[in-house]
């Protein structure tokens, strides 16, 4: 076991898959020679060469188009879109093309590709470089969607995504890049569609994703120490496929469901989950569900404002303890 950063886990995950499978190629802006604007891909060009690791122009549509055409014809591309906000620039390729090509052809096309991006807030980059847009991808049939919260999951879920025969949108969190975690030696694999129960407690079930996971865990510790409330914390990890089996089981254990979502209020991943719980597990609830989210606003740039609107550890603690 070693402790590595989330950003180094990205490098290691891509390298692991490129080493294993010669059909894996990687392209994006500043990913090769510069090692990535977030330093997530240093050394890959040196290790795998310019045939397999390619710098592109600032052309998001062309990046994803090339990935899709290559995936249709025998390659397994990993395409980087630098900031998840930029999905808006190439949304046709994601929502209309790669998500639908197999369906429209009733199976003639297989698209084993991964689109990875830097998602999320906390770095004072302002409204157009800080969004959490995993719900945009979740809303489009034909896309698998994952968002790891720790270095081990980065490697394992990236491996699972690369090996998956369908398009996977891989949401890294830019605020988590410097965070550290233990990873085993050797090859790391995982599966899409599986949530992780990180902590068990009988009073509340807290679902979180990506950068909200460490906040939910910290809140659970505070709730235990300060209020005697024991919370289960579930790292959702995979939005599509969604591990409702685990989520429903954990909600049934406590009867109280909370989500911690970095996205703006409307139509976040938590809205879908609480809707499913209301439909299928109403009887297991002993109180109303509560979604803890950023308000429905663009994100401000000033640090004081940004910190105020994102779900903080204190806001999670206050909301859960008030509710119970």
């Amino acid at each position: 076991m070693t402790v590595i950063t989330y950003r180094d886990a990205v490098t290691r995950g891509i390298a692991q898959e490129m080493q294993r499978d010669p059909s894996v190629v990687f392209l994006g802006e500043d990913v090769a020679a510069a090692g990535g604007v977030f330093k997530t891909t240093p050394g890959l060009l040196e290790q795998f060469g310019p045939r397999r690791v390619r710098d592109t122009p600032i052309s998001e549509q062309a990046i994803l188009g090339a990935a899709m055409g290559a995936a249709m014809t025998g390659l397994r591309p990993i395409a980087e879109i630098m900031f998840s906000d930029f999905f808006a620039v190439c949304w046709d390729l994601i929502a209309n093309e790669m998500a639908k090509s197999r369906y429209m052809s009733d199976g003639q096309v297989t698209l084993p590709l991964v689109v990875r991006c830097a998602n999320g807030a906390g770095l004072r980059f302002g409204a157009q470089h800080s969004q959490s847009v995993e719900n945009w991808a979740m809303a489009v049939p034909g896309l698998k969607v994952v968002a790891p919260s720790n270095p081990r999951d980065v490697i394992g879920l990236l491996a699972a995504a690369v090996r998956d025969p369908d398009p996977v949108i891989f949401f890294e969190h830019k605020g988590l890049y410097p965070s550290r975690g233990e990873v085993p030696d050797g090859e790391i694999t995982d599966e899409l569609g599986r949530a992780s129960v990180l902590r068990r407690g009988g009073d509340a079930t807290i679902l979180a994703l990506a950068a909200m996971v460490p906040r939910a865990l910290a809140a659970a510790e505070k709730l235990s120490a300060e209020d005697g409330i024991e919370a289960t914390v579930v790292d959702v990890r995979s939005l599509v496929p969604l591990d409702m089996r685990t989520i429903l089981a954990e909600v049934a254990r406590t009867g109280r469901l909370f989500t911690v979502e970095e996205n703006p209020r409307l139509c976040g991943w938590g809205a879908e989950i609480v809707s499913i719980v209301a439909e299928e597990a109403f009887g297991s609830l002993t109180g109303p569900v509560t979604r803890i989210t950023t308000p429905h606003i663009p994100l401000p740039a000033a640090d004081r404002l940004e910190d105020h609107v994102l779900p903080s550890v204190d806001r999670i603690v206050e909301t859960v303890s008030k509710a119970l």
Partner: protein
Amino acid sequence: MPEIPESTALELYRKMTEIRQFEKRAYDLFMQNLVKGTTHLGTGQEAVAAGVSQAMADDDYMFVTYRGHNHVLARGTPMTQVMAELLGRENGLMHGKGGSMHLLDTSRGILGAYAIIGAQLVIANGSAWSAVYRGTSQVTVCFLGDGATNIGAFHEALNLASVWQLPVVFICENNQYMEYTPITSVTAVPRPAADRAASYGLDPVVVDGNDVEAVYEVAQAALGRARDGGGPALIEALTYRHGGHSRADPGKYRPDDEVKEWLARDPVPAYRAVLTGRGVDPAVLDELDRNAREAVDRATEEAKAGPLPRLELAGTNVWADGGNAWRN
């Protein structure tokens, strides 16, 4: 230019007459409400599809627009499968899941017809890159309309293709109209594709899109150069739709004298005249016309007899496992 062999010439004529008769039947079936939704017919533009497809190798890739019946038929996809797709039957090319605008036949390297204008250009770069990566000599041919030259994906695709020197040949079928609007009124330069070529380090190439042998020759040269590692090409083929933009559009915005002038340059009778002028027996061409009509009739019957798609097909093949499950 050396005269092409008669066998090739007859192939070109066969493709054009088959496309002509198929599209006419598609129009009739739409008027009988057997083809639903909409369809975008290529009547009048047969020479581009025939000439380019004839220059392609069997394992080359092809991307087409939503006006793609011509090209798919020219590459050999059976008429029945295309007709049945238009009729929404399970024996359709995509079992009725895609429809007229999204024809796709991977068995023939036809990586799809695209309804979002410009999308196919950026995707075509991918199959071209893949061929280079895998070390094959496959070339990717990508068709687009004149309207597509003004959309962002055109710029991104051409730039990347040039920077990466990809084996992709972009063929702009300039039928003078961006849907309902004359292309010249919405384009900053007179030749929508050719006048942009230099921006990507490419030579401007303009060809009479209604002269099937001229198209064939230009295509051969561009494909050959791409196949030899010479990089991409952008070809502008001048042509004209005989009908409206889609079946819903009678095309009344086009001036009568312009329509008359282009109808007089109909590529199919024009090529008949070229061939008979070279000494080809008209009866040979009549037989090709007759065969085409019979093939279209057979395809029509087989499509009409095709089963309505089983309801469960609505749920198939979102994913590679054949299903659509998003949760456990």
